[in-house]
């Protein structure tokens, strides 16, 4: 598994598998509940829910599914919700290209990754060909 700065101390709120389209719906609703509990306003709740929906669908479409970790913790003195998407799919060959607006290798519009980045406070991505992709996003009030 790819490791994204594993030294932080976050509280694990939940761990979910994304294997079907229903899992995408259930998991994004779960994220919204945690965002609400963390005291985020309606716009931020909508941003984080939409962001994870994009990431979950990418995992489902391109990697055949994956795993989601939802955590809460202190990031630079912010009370942050941290969502990590881990898959063992084919990986992304050109990250810079994948992160640019309008690039898609399939039938999408290519706004999933760059759009997600705009919706959150932190966005980290790691990918290795034939090993998989890990995306971690953070959002705070």
């Amino acid at each position, binding site marked *: 598994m790819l490791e994204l700065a594993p030294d932080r101390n976050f509280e694990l709120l939940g761990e979910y598998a994304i294997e079907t389209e229903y899992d995408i*719906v259930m998991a994004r609703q779960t994220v*919204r509940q945690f965002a609400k509990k963390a005291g985020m306003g309606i716009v931020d709740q909508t941003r984080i829910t939409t962001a994870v929906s994009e990431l979950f669908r990418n995992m489902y479409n391109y990697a055949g599914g994956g795993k989601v970790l939802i955590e809460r913790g202190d990031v630079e003195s912010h009370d942050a919700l941290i969502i990590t998407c881990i898959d063992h799919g084919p990986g992304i060959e050109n990250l810079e290209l994948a992160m640019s607006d309008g690039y898609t290798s399939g039938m999408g519009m290519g*706004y999933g990754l760059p759009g997600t980045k*705009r919706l959150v406070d932190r966005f980290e991505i790691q990918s290795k060909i034939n090993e998989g992709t890990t995306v971690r996003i953070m959002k705070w009030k």
Partner: protein
Amino acid sequence: MDLHEKRIPIIKIRDFLIVSIQVDMHDKLAIQLQSQILEEIGRTGAKGVLIDISVLEMVDSFIGRMLSGMASMASIMDAAVVIVGMQPAVAITLVELGLEMPGVDTALNMEKGMEMLEKRLKDLEHNFF
């Protein structure tokens, strides 16, 4: 809520179809709704479609694409699509995501949406005769 069993009803009132999306749609349901509406346009000859999304708490790129794709396909079939009641938070998020949804008309509520469609229909009739 059983996500597997949901089917979204389509109601016809005069020349218009009315669809109220009451569930957080998974992708297959969104695609199914799109073709269901297009079929209904073909079957009934409806001139307009009102899609109420006021209870939708998010519209991601997939649902956005479904809505704008439906609008352009409907216009080929000579029907106008109006998206009704989009929550402000959803609209803000869509813009930040980068989705423009070209060709999609929006209205604040059902009444305004209906007015838009009726006006369009009247304009069309005037041009015709």
